[in-house]
């Protein structure tokens, strides 16, 4: 299972790629594997205010409907509308084409509280 070193991770199984004050967010390889075939992603609205560790979107697989949490606080500035037609990208390329939304962070220091790849790998292996 792949957990890129350059990303940070939440305990709720989202990844974060930081670019300045912007955080690109998706669900991890572990999460997509656990969910199974993703058939729909309910994207957050652009302009929505999101709170760290609060739910802001949902993902449906052939097995379940689950919440997606924002790992950081801020404003949604971009969403991956390509997932409306191709939700399976979440499975096929969770860290690339399967990204879900981008947050303009209110406090970029929040990222420091997230797990690094080693910490997240340990969390997942514990599970």
């Amino acid at each position, binding site marked *: 299972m792949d957990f890129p070193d350059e990303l940070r991770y939440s305990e709720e199984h989202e990844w974060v790629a930081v670019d300045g004050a912007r955080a690109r967010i998706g669900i991890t390889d572990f999460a997509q594997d656990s969910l199974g075939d993703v058939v729909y992603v309910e994207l957050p609205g652009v302009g929505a205010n999101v709170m760290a560790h609060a*739910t802001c979107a949902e993902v449906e697989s*052939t097995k379940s409907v689950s919440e997606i949490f924002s790992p950081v606080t801020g404003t949604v500035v971009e969403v991956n509308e390509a997932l409306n037609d191709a939700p399976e990208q979440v499975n096929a390329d969770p860290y690339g084409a399967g990204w879900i939304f981008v947050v303009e962070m209110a406090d970029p220091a929040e990222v420091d509280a997230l797990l690094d790849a080693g910490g997240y790998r340990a969390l997942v292996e514990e599970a």
Partner: protein
Amino acid sequence: MVDDIDGELDAAAQMAADETLLDDVAGGGPPVLRLYRWSRPALSLGRFQPVDDVDAPACRRRGVEVVRRPTGGMGLLHGGDVTYAVAMPRPAGADGSVDAVYRLLAGGLIAGLARLGVAAAVARHGGPAGPVCFAGQQGADLRVGDRKLCGSAQVWRAGALLQHGSVLVERLAFDETELLRARPGSPPVSRERLRAATVTLQELGAPTDPRHVAHALVEGFAEALDLDLSRRVGSTARRG
């Protein structure tokens, strides 16, 4: 026999009752099991299933209520089934995965069905399917031979989960193939194909009295699960 089944609510009220179970557990309440029937035939749609799948005039002609479930999955017709709902906290560690919870609850369902003389097994995962739940099989479902007997779906919220599902007891005079439209570019599911893909307790020669079925499922969950589901919600124990 203990009355374990709740059959007096319409479709919207049944779904609201299940959502309440989930909210209660998410708020720290104990796990709970509910068994129910439907006061009249109803078509339930998955949480995000396109409404375009529904043939609304056909539903009106048949007097079928249409309701959206909080859980995922595709459309299915209720009326000839017994429905179960389990709300429980997310188990810790590896037991807290989607697959692990399906396996856990499948154990209860399989044990319950065994009490009715039915040897059910977990279905094979067929991947995304069309708009008719019972025309396809996922790893969440139960089969007898290759025919689907029980379809289940989940929603996870705030550290809790709701799984509910439908055990086919007998067939109605019509089915989902009359009520759900084929999607563009996909062939419609024929009535014959749906019948061949499914099986009912009646066809298996098992008991069909809903109270009997519900009681067997309650006992099956009690036998197979290390979960205290004693706070059942049925017609004799429904909360106001």
